[in-house]
């Protein structure tokens, strides 16, 4: 492993304090990957700044020594977004984790980038407000990371994804400049000029490091109706999804789990899911009490009309929370089935769900890999979990190939290779399949506006990027 020269380490230590620089190989291995574990490479150093100024100074030091900068939050990315492909310096915002202020009258929260998603809601809920985007990892993932990947979550079906809830943010650009994009903490809702805020959301850490964010808070709905519909086939469940949406109901969330994942989740959490069910829909309606009952009846009748075996309603808030806990921790429950899994988050038009689900089960049979599914059915955002064991190289190969077939099919059906996890290193090869060379050139040109040197989170997103393996080979050739 290439280490950083001692004088650079010293400079970083002077900036953030000795305890907040990690530069020894045995501690750096902890940062060799995020939640995507197929590719690993340790960074050359990790810095943990405590303020915007410290971030800016650390970035300037990296720029001066032409070291790649890898912004990192809680490292929960599922696509290798914070992998240090060719080493470099990880700038982790985990010490900058405070909710700075809640402004209930203007429904805003000002937070630091390392603030955990769920903490915002915790701080706002006694004002009757919450932060709406709720990725399944919301108990751990950070707002900075949510902005970098424009995170989704079950409730984004009704409320929109991260970009709809970010008024503005402060960002340290790859040359160390500090800028504010979008609405400033005491500013009005709209800002003149092109929407640079929007451009930077979802840029996967290539445009700079968010150091403060101004979030939009949303009133907590007056009432929830959370239902569980049990089906004999995935196809029936998919048809029910299409009908509910087509009828004009806008559910807060509409999630599907297939038979395999139901079994894993039930074994782990013992919620009481029927083990013989082939598909389950979690349908959540929220809003004003008036009219909610009628919508619930309608949704129920669409499920029953599509051969649902039963439709249950959560009777208490506790039951509702339990149900969501099962859904949100479903990925982890597969740890019981297999030591490793890979998940994709391809999107297809809702009407193509039945066809897509048939395709996935066909891929599973052809490759001999188990592929449970748990996903945001309401917006056609899939999450096939391809199970493998990393100690068996042939399984790794098959898992990758199976995943690629699934993503290719998503593009074919008019969808996209990612709904919310981002491209990272995982899906680079698909960018050229989904976008034309002109599209990609335009994206690259935009990136260069923010990072002309391309040293902020390099080797991500764009085709032609180097992989960890390329660098390993290069390092083995004597200079």
């Amino acid at each position, binding site marked *: 492993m290439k280490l950083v020269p001692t004088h650079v380490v010293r400079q970083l230590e002077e900036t953030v304090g000795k*305890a*907040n620089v*990690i530069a*020894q*190989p*045995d*501690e750096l*291995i*902890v*940062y*060799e*990957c*995020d*939640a995507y*574990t197929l590719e690993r490479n340790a960074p050359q150093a*990790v810095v*943990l700044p405590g303020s915007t100024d410290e971030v800016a100074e650390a970035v300037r030091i990296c720029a001066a020594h032409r070291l790649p900068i890898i912004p990192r939050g*809680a*490292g*929960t990315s599922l696509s290798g977004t914070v992998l240090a492909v060719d080493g470099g310096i990880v700038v*982790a915002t*985990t*010490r900058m*984790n405070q909710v700075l202020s809640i402004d209930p009258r203007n429904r805003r929260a000002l937070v630091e980038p*390392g603030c*955990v998603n769920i903490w915002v809601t915790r701080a706002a809920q006694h004002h009757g407000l919450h932060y709406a985007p709720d990725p399944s*990892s919301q*108990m*751990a*993932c950070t707002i900075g990371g949510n902005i970098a990947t424009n995170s989704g979550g079950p409730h984004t079906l009704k409320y929109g994804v991260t970009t709809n809830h970010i008024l503005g943010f402060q960002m340290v650009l790859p040359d160390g400049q500090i800028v504010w994009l979008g609405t400033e903490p005491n500013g009005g809702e709209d800002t003149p000029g092109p929407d640079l805020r929007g451009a930077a959301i979802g840029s996967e850490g290539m445009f700079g490091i968010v150091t403060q964010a101004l979030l939009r808070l949303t009133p907590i709905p007056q009432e929830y109706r959370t239902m569980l519909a049990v089906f004999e086939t995935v196809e029936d469940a998919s048809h029910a999804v299409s009908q509910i949406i087509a009828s004009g109901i806008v559910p807060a969330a509409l999630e599907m789990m297939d038979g395999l994942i139901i079994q894993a989740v039930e074994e*782990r959490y013992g919620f009481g899911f029927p083990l013989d069910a082939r598909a389950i829909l979690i349908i959540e309606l929220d809003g004003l009490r008036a009219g909610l009952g009628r919508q619930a009846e309608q949704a129920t009748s669409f499920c029953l009309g599509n051969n649902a075996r039963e439709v249950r309603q959560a009777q208490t808030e506790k039951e509702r929370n339990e149900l969501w806990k099962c859904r949100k*921790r*479903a*990925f*982890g*429950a*597969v*740890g*019981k089935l297999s*030591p*490793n*899994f890979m998940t994709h988050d391809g999107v297809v038009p809702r009407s193509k769900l039945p066809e897509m689900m048939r395709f996935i089960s066909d891929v599973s049979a052809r490759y001999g890999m188990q592929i449970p599914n748990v996903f945001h059915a309401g917006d056609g955002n899939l999450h096939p979990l391809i199970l493998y064991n990393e100690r068996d190289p042939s399984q790794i190969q098959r898992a990758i190939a199976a995943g690629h077939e699934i993503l290719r099919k998503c593009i074919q059906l008019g969808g996209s290779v990612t709904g919310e996890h981002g491209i990272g290193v995982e899906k680079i090869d698909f960018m050229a399949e989904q976008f034309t060379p002109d599209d990609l050139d335009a994206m690259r040109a935009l990136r260069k506006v923010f990072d002309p040197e391309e040293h902020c989170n390099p080797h991500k997103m764009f085709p032609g990027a180097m992989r960890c393996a390329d660098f390993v080979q290069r390092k083995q050739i004597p200079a």
Partner: protein
Amino acid sequence: MNQTQLPPFLDRSKSDACIHCGLCLQSCPTFLETGNENDSPRGRIHLMRGLDDGKILLTDRVATHIDRCLGCRACEAVCPSGVEYGAMLEATRHTITRHRTMRLPQRLLQKVVVERMLTWPNGLRLAVSPARGMQRFGLTRVLPQRLRKLVELIPQKPKNSTSQPSFHQEKIEVKATAGMMSGCVASVLFGETNQATVALAQACGYQIIVSSGDLCCGAIHAHSGNLPEARKRAQRMIEFFENTETDVVIVNAAGCGSTMKEYPQFFSNNAEWRQRAEQCSSKVRDVTEIAAELPASLKKKKQEHPRTTYHDACHLCHAQHITEQPRTLMQEILGNNFVELPESDVCCGSAGSYNITQPELAGRLGSRKARNIIATGATVVVTANIGCIMQIRASLQSAGVQDIQVVHIADWAIQAIQ
């Protein structure tokens, strides 16, 4: 620096369950304080696997991150894959202890102060009187810092210790017989709390027929990786209660209770002892579980209760999953005077012997807890573990707060129902 290659020591069926998702990170008190993933559960598992695979060598640097783990098991409670982190930690610590050359002061602290003195009631008794004397006359200043912190944790004798907590009511029917696990530290420092526990159990219909006296359950040894010694002590405890006619064994220290409920894990390779351990474990109840059976007639609401909050002891909420019973009891008695404590389930830094072996981080976590308590405006903090009580009292004192009481739930409940 010493570098040691460790032999494989992890049970792969356990360590493979971690899928590296990172959902545990923010539940970890040490990660919340340092922001360094080496101080997080996922990071520590990464280090454990690295040591186990031989990818990294054991250095002081790596060992420090394992040492810094509180063993609070908050990560287990949130882990979606059900990783048995506590068991992995004990196995890792056990291996590290055998292969590492600790510096002498550190070794003395661990082997003599923590593993011997703390769990040797007569020794502890000898040490307590002079320590209390020093506290009273403000002489602790002359001690070296680490020792001073330790001495300052020791609680003063209750002022009116002539009146023993008791509960007499003829009408309560005896529904079961119980043994009291009085604990090696508690029997010296918290005799009053033990009496309150007995009285509370009686009020709930349990007749206490025997007490384990000075016997140590082995929890402190298990947590620091001394598994053989922990096993020995567990065997003594199991034998002791086997020879009694008890339906349940009541424990009022969360760390002891969780270890006793998990005794079978100590004997995975010994069928006979595993079975005896299972028998013993199935009888173990925390005092908060017993208190949940308090007859409704005794839980009268009084208006004059001060604003009171509740701190979750780690080994009660994360290891034994007991969170609702104490809250229900307190709400029933206190009504609106019960307030929730923010971050109530984040460790206070006590963690068995942690405030002795890791004073710096223990101090940071203690101040964090004190800040949260002060913010609630409560004047009474109730918890169910003596280690937490000592640590929180000391932390509040360091924060300059004099008028917040920290009491064990048994003491609190027996007073509340009088």
